[in-house]
């Protein structure tokens, strides 16, 4: 089957979308952006293709009587198992890499205990991985680095204490290895992993039903996913190993992506990690005008990230905390760093955290309003995309300001809006072949 792929290489995350030739989304994938753009692009693409397989499984299983009413649950289970298999594979890689690094010169004289400690940590990690991927378990993140990293720290610390080994050594080995593992292009064959996951999932099912299900899943697996056309976009697009005609401006992709999600979109605001863009599109999704901020963190996602660090909070906790505020304080500093200092001053002076936070959210949105305004203002419908669209307090401030200044326009916010650029890219890929 012909696939059209859009890859959005962002400053923080890389996103990919796979589309079929009818313009239907088959799958989406995301990974953290890293210095090796090829890998980031390859990983996100692979993730999207994996996701596409699940779409095909679903299509295949729709008519399967044995799973009547249970398709969702079955697929969820299958996915969990698949992720687990994938996780274990990457763990193996990490361990092997670690062992190799542990034998390095830096650790002369310590190789043995280090190797033993590594072995122990990975044994424990494998053992508890079952739990991490158990049904209903909440994972910290979808990225291997985050999941493995946090558990490695916790387990490693204990193991080192036990063994009388400096944890810094182990940490150093980890730091070296994770970068290598992360930057290794993903292993090719997915089929084996699917089959292992399938086996495990079916283990819980009755034999007869299992045969039918396995048959259909295998049939879906056999459908070749042919990469008909790939389009790259985003902040890092020029460094993608693509020929020029496969690269599209991120602005155009965002515009078109937003148009696909909400056909009535005329104005798009995208607040990502390093930049904020306001885009005006025509009724066909073609960009008419746009504005972006320059290289200053004030007013984009990193602003919130910085503030979260400053307050020792998680990024996802900021919004909910700011929502509790009853009066928003005015933040005077433009600069992110000065805003951080102002925040400390204000807290020291007895202002409430939530009020200060609300002020900070207002500040970032005000800056976005100014960029929107420079791009030509807001027209109905207005679509808000990018990572910050996940932040409810930002959404609240934005909604308020839009209402006050532009009246009752429709405001679209989609939890998957982080894929907007990649979606636009995929559509461009499709059009490149079809038009």
């Amino acid at each position, binding site marked *: 089957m012909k696939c059209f792929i859009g890859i959005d290489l962002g400053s923080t995350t890389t996103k990919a979308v796979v589309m079929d030739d009818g313009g239907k989304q088959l799958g989406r994938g995301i990974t953290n952006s890293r210095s090796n753009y090829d890998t980031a692009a390859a990983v996100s693409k692979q993730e999207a293709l994996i996701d596409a397989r699940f779409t095909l499984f679903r299509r295949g299983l729709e008519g399967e009587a044995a799973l009547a009413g249970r398709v969702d649950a079955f697929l969820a289970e299958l996915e969990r198992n698949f992720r687990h298999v994938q996780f274990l594979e990457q763990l193996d890689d990490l361990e092997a890499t670690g062992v190799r690094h542990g034998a390095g010169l830096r650790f002369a004289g310590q190789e043995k205990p280090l190797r033993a400690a590594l072995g122990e940590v990975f044994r424990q990690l494998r053992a508890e991985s079952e739990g991490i991927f158990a049904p209903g378990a909440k994972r910290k993140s979808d990225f291997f680095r985050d999941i493995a990293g946090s558990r490695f720290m916790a387990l490693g610390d204990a193991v080192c204490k036990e063994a009388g080994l400096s944890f810094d050594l182990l940490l150093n080995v980890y730091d070296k290895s994770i970068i290598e593992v992360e930057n290794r292009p993903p292993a090719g064959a997915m089929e084996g992993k699917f089959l292992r996951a399938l086996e495990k999932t079916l283990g819980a099912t009755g034999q007869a039903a299992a045969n039918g299900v396995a048959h259909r899943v295998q049939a879906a697996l056999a459908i070749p996913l042919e990469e008909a056309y790939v389009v790259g976009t985003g902040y890092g697009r020029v460094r993608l190993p693509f020929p020029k005609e496969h690269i*599209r*401006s991120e*602005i*155009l992709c965002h515009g078109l992506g937003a148009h696909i999600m909400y056909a009535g979109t005329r104005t798009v605001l995208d607040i990502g990690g390093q930049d904020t863009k306001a885009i005006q599109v*025509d009724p*066909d999704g*073609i*960009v*008419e*005008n*746009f504005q972006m901020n*320059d290289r200053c963190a004030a007013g984009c996602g990193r602003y919130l990230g910085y503030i979260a660090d400053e307050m020792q909070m998680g990024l996802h906790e900021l919004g909910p905390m700011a929502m509790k505020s009853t009066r928003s304080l005015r933040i005077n500093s433009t600069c992110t760093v000065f805003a951080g200092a102002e925040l400390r001053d204000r807290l020291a002076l007895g202002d409430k955290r939530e009020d200060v936070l609300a002020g900070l959210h207002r500040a970032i949105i005000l800056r976005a309003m100014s960029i929107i305004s*420079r791009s*030509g203002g807001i027209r109905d419908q207005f679509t808000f995309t990018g990572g910050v669209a996940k932040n409810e307090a930002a959404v609240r401030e934005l909604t308020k300001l839009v209402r006050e200044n532009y009246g009752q326009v429709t405001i679209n916010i989609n939890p998957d809006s982080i894929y907007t650029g990649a979606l636009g890219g995929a559509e461009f890929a499709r059009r490149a072949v079809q*038009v």
Partner: protein
Amino acid sequence: MSKPESKAAGKSEVVKDLSMLKQKEMITRNYDALTSAPETGRKVAATFVPGNLNELIQVFGLLNNLPEINAIQNGMRKLSGDYILEAEKRGHSEDVCTYVKADLGSMAKGNLAPNGKPLPRPDVLLLSYTGCFTFMKWFELVRNEYKCPTVMLHVPYQGEGTTTRNMRDYIVKQLKQEVIPKLEQVSGVKFDIDRLRELMRESAKAEDDFVWVLETARHRPSPIDAYFGSVYYTGPIFTAFRGTPDASEYYRLLRAEIEERMAKGLGPITPEGDMKQQKYRLVVEGPPNWTSFREFWKMFYDEGAVVVASSYTKVGGLYDLGFRHDPDHPLESLADYAMGCYTNMNLPQRVGLLEKYMKEYEADGLLINSIKSCNSFSAGQLMMMREIEKRTGKPGAFIETDLVDPRYFSAANVKNRLESYFQMIDQKRRVASAA
């Protein structure tokens, strides 16, 4: 006529047309005359480009030294950056017009002409206060250095969108009662109105050919680039040569060359030879960037974008709207000329003019190159863009650079913007042709 028939793209030496050689020779001669003024005893006037009184200056045998042109020369030769820093070191703000700073910085560093010899001290500053407030401060600052006589010619702005009898009388009065007597005094030459008429007759000749050349951009393909290429075409007529037989000769040659290009169906000449395909026809508002002029231009011809009309080529007069220097009414005609240049038009007039160009030259869009340090041009350009988009239905694009401050030319940003813009025009066309 030598034709750049074989211009192996890129490195090989660019074949120069006769007109180019002619202009080069004129400029060299003029700089030599200027730098040798201390020896020859010739007197020197400094004045500004918009609405300049070159014919009058010549009546008195004065050499005309235009500080804006020197700033451009220094910008193109990549010297302006240092000069600007020098001026800032001497207390000038980062925020002000960089032409002024490039000039003052150059003065501080020996004020060398392109021929490597110092430019002479002016004997008189003719402050044609036309179309830009900063001119006044500029000459106050220069006067502070040279302590030389300064003549103010206040040219009223077309605030109400027209010139009036009162405005004209005011200028003529200043010419008669102040400018002419002062120039007589400085030069020791008696004013000779017939000489002035003679020069103006010569001007008008060149002006006819110049307009003819600019208007060839109506053709498809356009044989000229009405911005980058035409910057050279404006040279003689906007500066120290208008009214000289040299200038007439230059435009005669130029016209013949363009006629030939048209006959052969050729596009404009670029630093890398003839421009091939013309995918986009643009109208450009605002001066170009000089420090990266070539790089900037390349971003256009590489993408197949040709400029068919521009406002910058009208700062030295709107000859295409019919104005000619009129030997029968010399002083009145000087007044009309000074009042009529582009920067002296009010915003609604500027919008009207660009709209006219968009339509008459069948442009695909309007591009504004907004100059960070030039309030005269830049304040209001966003509004102009909106207004043109509204009136013509064609998309506008806005880029921000500077005249001669290399710090403000971000090639990556400009390129990103232009690429998005061209892709956008493409998209629009596709949809239009599909419909």
